[in-house]
């Protein structure tokens, strides 16, 4: 099996509330994997466990065969796993190009490389990726003055600039103008095919995720409810019940 992320039997509770109990999933290298579930089903908790924002109670999380459930956030990030935030996080006081240049893959640099100035290629790549997400015209604007949707696109471009192996996206289409969603789906797919980035996506919008993912996991009440191909998930009665609140 060629799984880049392997989660086995992970449980996590906050106080008395079980946010995740005995969850197992795996993300195949080079593919697009989706994670869905109703509000409060523990999707973001799962993400945070993987990237190391809190300790897990039990279970194991492996990245490329390496156990990461005890590692700290910066160490995990440097393995090449990048996450975007549900609430976008960009450097609001800087302009878009500066945001892009900060996103250069520092994990691949030693101190000596870091003590150099950005090269012409870096600038070109930043411009190219900003064009890719459609922000080229606004590249010298303070990024804090962009609209929420544009900031999300900028964060996505920054993620691509970072050349991650795996990209974890927390609701990439939330808050984005519906007319632009198709464009975003297209770009996500191209990020997967052209740049070879493995995607692991939390998404509320069923249409989006059904269109993109090779494999979908569905959480409900912190437990794994169903997994399978989009077609299977779409017809799964348990998933439909969970979303309609029939539990």
């Amino acid at each position, binding site marked *: 099996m060629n799984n880049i992320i392997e989660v086995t039997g992970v449980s996590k509770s906050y106080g008395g509330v079980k946010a995740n109990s005995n969850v197992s999933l795996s993300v195949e290298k080079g593919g697009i994997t989706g994670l869905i579930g109703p509000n409060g089903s523990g999707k973001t908790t799962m993400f945070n466990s993987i990237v*190391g*924002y*809190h*300790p897990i109670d039990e279970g194991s999380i492996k990245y490329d065969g390496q156990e990461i459930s005890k590692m*700290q*956030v910066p160490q995990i990030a440097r393995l090449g796993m990048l996450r975007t935030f549900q609430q976008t996080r960009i450097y609001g006081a800087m302009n878009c190009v500066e945001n892009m240049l900060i996103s250069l893959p520092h994990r691949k640099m030693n101190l000596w490389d870091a003590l150099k100035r950005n090269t012409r290629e870096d600038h070109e790549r930043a411009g190219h990726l900003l064009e890719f997400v459609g922000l080229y015209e606004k590249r010298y604007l303070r990024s804090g003055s962009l609209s929420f949707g544009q900031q999300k696109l900028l964060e996505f471009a920054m993620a691509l600039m970072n050349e991650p192996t795996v990209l974890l996206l927390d609701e990439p289409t939330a808050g984005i103008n519906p007319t632009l969603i198709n464009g975003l789906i297209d770009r996500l797919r191209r990020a997967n095919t052209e740049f070879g980035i493995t995607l692991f996506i939390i998404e509320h919008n069923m249409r989006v995720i059904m269109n993109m993912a090779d494999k979908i996991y569905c959480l409900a009440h912190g437990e794994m409810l169903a997994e399978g191909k989009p077609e299977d998930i779409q017809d799964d009665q348990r998933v439909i019940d969970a979303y309609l609140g029939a539990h």
Partner: protein
Amino acid sequence: MDEILFNISLLIDYPIVNLKIIIDGVMIGALFALAAYGLALVWGVMNVKNLAQGDFVIAGGYVALMLSKAGINPLFGVPLAFVVMWGIGWVIYKVIITRVIERDLFTSLLATFGLAIMMAQLMNLMFGSDAQSVNLGYDTLRFADGIIDVPIAKLIGVGMAAVLAIAVVLFMKRSRMGQAIRATAQDARAARVLGIDTEKVYAFTFGLNAAICGAAGAIIVMIWVIQPFYGIGYSVRAFVIVTAAGLGNLPGVIAAGLGFGAAEQYGAHIFGDGYKQAIAVILLLLVLFFRLLQQRRNRQVLK
């Protein structure tokens, strides 16, 4: 080095010395706990980390000192210092603190640091740089062949500290203002929505903090000595205790205060009195790093 080993062997050979150190430590720790509780209060309610905490203590001490110089029993200095420091605290709040509450934490830290310098220097100009104290003229109780000596003045002081602590706790639990303070500490915005005048609560809290510190200082001047520049030491101690105990946890603050007093006395016994200040600071660093390791296990940092 030999001296240190000798001091340690003394502790082992004569267990009674331990008891003496612990009694001394607990007594001074009770007063540290008061200052620390004040800090926990302003820290928790308005998120201001007050570095002038120790200077409030010393200022309270000088109030009691002036009173005794005027020929009045210094025990009355404790309530007087409480009232006077309340007033000073209120003025400081209105002039400085109210302008830094909403700002980032470093602003309040630095502003109160400037305030601490200003207060220490003012007291230096007004009272001179000598270490001073008030002699109550009471007897000293002696136990265990005179190894343990407890001046009655110290007992009175600790008793007054306890009374003050209990009064404050009751006030926070029972009174409407106490409830408002606790509500503001939990969520200032919600409190404002519910009609609590948070500005008033803040001013009150800061005044109360200064008053508690002032009373503690008035007790300290009767049993130890004060000096204009001792303030920073008390501020550091208050920070150690609050960092170790956490906010809004009075039993924790008292326990940490007493423990800290004992630890400091042990340190002073082993390494010599010259290291007292250094020991307080090193304890701060130890507490910070212990909390850091704790947070690391939670994959978090100390913010």
